[in-house]
């Protein structure tokens, strides 16, 4: 429940996000949940453009603009510095896009996760390098159009959550702008946990996904309801839990509102459905496995 006067927005109007930007919504919700005592590290991504175009800042909290591949260690470093100075009540959050997480920053992210540094890593995933003009990243789903994959990407989207779970960090979760309360709850949960926390937030992009700008939130909802982007969390790399039971709508509902999937034929859509079902079953197995283990 939203509580009057206890939560405030730490993002300002007037930023330069495209109309209907999913990243802007996600940033706003994340900062709302974290509160004023927060330091952000933002690396090149849509988020960095939204946060500041020098000399203007859209954030009401201190933010450090790092280099592309160092979101994680920069945040970890700041967190250490705060610890040394005895300021344990300040949260450090690293905000990166999918390029800075899945591709360029993966090595350093892995390093901090391995050492279980104390900070929150938020990946705002819009499934391509949108900021530089829609080039594919390893977060781009199979068959999605980008300017570097004009016939659709051939590789499947990297499963970043499994990578992070494999590091056995204390908390990793997916969240969606279609479910703002769930998103903010997860951010607050992460805030209360010691160690490396990873949040994977799908932020639909009207520009790069080739869809109408009013549909970003509906696309986020559909991604969850079609099980393409299920909402779940993983504790310590082993305890899985689904936080929102999706309806299991046909993936076509999600694909048809996006121009980047316009070239798909019925057979490809069916294969997308099969792949989605496989992924879901594999996730569901994890969940039931740990429920069984918990019962033993």
């Amino acid at each position: 429940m939203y509580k009057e006067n206890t939560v405030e927005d730490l993002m300002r109007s007037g930023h330069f996000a495209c109309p209907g930007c999913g990243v802007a919504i996600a940033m706003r919700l994340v900062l709302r949940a974290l509160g004023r005592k927060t330091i952000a590290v933002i690396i090149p991504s849509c988020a960095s453009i939204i946060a500041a175009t020098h000399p203007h800042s859209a954030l009401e909290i201190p933010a450090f603009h790092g280099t592309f591949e160092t979101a994680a260690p920069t945040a970890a470093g700041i967190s250490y510095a705060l610890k040394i100075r005895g300021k344990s009540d300040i949260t450090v959050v690293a905000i990166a896009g999918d390029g800075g997480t899945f591709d360029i920053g993966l090595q350093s992210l892995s390093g901090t996760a391995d050492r279980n540094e104390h900070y929150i890593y938020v990946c705002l995933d819009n499934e391509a390098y949108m900021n530089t003009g829609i080039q594919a990243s390893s977060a781009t789903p199979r068959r999605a159009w980008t300017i570097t994959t004009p016939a659709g990407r051939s590789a499947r989207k990297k499963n970043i959550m499994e990578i992070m779970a494999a590091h056995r960090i204390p908390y990793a979760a997916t969240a969606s702008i279609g479910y703002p309360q769930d998103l903010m709850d997860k951010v607050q949960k992460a805030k209360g946990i010691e160690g490396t926390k990873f949040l994977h937030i799908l932020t639909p992009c009207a520009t790069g996904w080739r869809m109408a700008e009013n549909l970003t939130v509906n696309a986020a909802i559909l991604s969850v309801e079609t099980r393409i982007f299920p909402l779940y969390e993983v504790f310590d790399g082993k305890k899985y839990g689904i936080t929102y039971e999706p309806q299991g709508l046909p993936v076509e509902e999600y694909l048809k509102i996006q121009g980047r999937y316009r070239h798909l034929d019925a057979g490809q859509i069916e294969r997308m459905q099969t792949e989605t079902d496989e992924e879901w079953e594999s996730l569901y197995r994890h969940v039931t496995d740990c429920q069984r283990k918990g019962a033993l």
Partner: protein
Amino acid sequence: MTTQENLRAADYETIIPVSRANTKVFKTGQWSQKKPTHHPKLSPCREACPVGNNIPGALAHVSKGDYNAALALILQENPLPGICGRVCYHPCQTSCNRNQFDETVEIRSLERAIADYGCATPQICSSPTDNKTTIAVIGSGPAGLSAAYFLALFGHRVTIFESRAEPGGVLRYGIPEYRLPGEVLNREIGRILALGIDLEKGVRIDSERLDDLQDRFEYIFLGTGAWLPQKTGLSSENRETIQYGLDFLSHEKKEIFCQGKKNIVVIGGGDVAVDVARTARRLCGPGTVITMIAPEKEGDFPAIPEGLAEAEDERIRIIGEYQPIEFIGNSHLEKVRFVRTKVEKDRVTGRYTLLPGDGNDLLVDADLVLIAIGQLPDTGLFLPEIVDKDFSKVFVNDLGMTPSSRFYAGGDLTRKRPAVADAILSGKRAALSIHLKANGYDPEIIIPALTLGQGSSLSISAYIEAGLIDLKKVVQFAELNTLLYRKTGAEHGTKSPPETRRTDFSEVNGGLERKAAIDEAKRCFYCGSCIGCDLCFLLCPDISIAKEGDRIYRVDKDYCKGCSICATVCPRHVIEMEESQ
């Protein structure tokens, strides 16, 4: 000292630029002329509700468990919620947008739950400066009670004249106890009379008294109902073993007609016929064969389908598409002959005509026939200029006024749809007309403005809180963002088992439990009503919607880029995009 320590803050910024200015200097709202506006609209259920109940508003209160607030809201429009929640033909449920998603919200059961579990007093809706006048209400049925209730809320002095021993009219003497228990009726009438309305019981108005009333009161509301039975017109009809619907139901010793009867035939397919058949079942016991025969096709009977289904559960045989042609028997009735018939509805006038159908005659054994094919008003005592002799009714215009300007009328006397909810509407309309006229306003302008959507119902709360809700825009299913809803079945109340019902007049429908009613209210889409879900506020990428209180949002046009996410996401279609300049 190192060189680094000598650097002052300003010098740092030559190495690491720091953004200190606020992005609010950029009026990004100039990127688009499209801006959202929050404007509550009408839900299809409320448009269909003859009483004009604010259904989404009340259900939003119930979903939070606040029955008192829900009842207070309902009482703004409906003086008899506990009665409507039991006996209404619920057109709201037919038009519910949820029908196109899974199944309708059980609005009628919820209205009953609100009336039974809630506690509230009606809100006075007049200002002390309003003119007060005096009104005589003749008849204490739903139309008269409704007129008296709203007139009293407007601050006028009302006296109700009732010819019978107790008030309620058809509610008390027509609708049986198993559908509408007496304590519910007394509770609801008590709440109305507590507004300071005088009730004179056992006073039958004749023409002499009517003259007297004209001297004592400024206005007179006629709500005497329709109590004369419509007859079949067959020559063999005049026997003791033939009784008529309301006469039978209101008879103090109706059991004497039923004693020892083996085969009872009920003629008619309306709610009165169903009540007659079910009352006969309870008086005769399970051994008697009761057959209900109507000219309409089975499944097309004018009666409420739930009532018919309950009648079938009580082993009442239902046969459609026959009409009586002859009552056979000498001193005692033995059989009734029916001919095959079909009903055709005139597309223009909406009137039904009976045409001969194909098929053989039907001969039914009968030692008692109960005819319930309609009621006619007794218009004999009224001024001739207000009576339509051809259709035996009182003329009223769209304001509830008869051709004589001091007389208003409503309910079955005007022969509109003979339902409780429509009678309440006619009383409400007349009350508002009288109030407006007494205060020098023109009802012909104001009443159409308070009419809900394309329908005929009228909202008193819209009169008090003008402009809060767009009464002409009805939210369609396609306009809702149903992505955020889940398909769930409706909660249904319990029913007493048919075996016990055959001898017992206690209420058949148990209604919804408190908890079940809350769950059911949560199924409501709240079409067109803001319930403060905050999605528009939380999901604005430009932080240009400010929350200024419960369900109060303000759009900052300086920064809104017109992306329309708020309007698209709103599950209730409260927000619309408009071009601004």
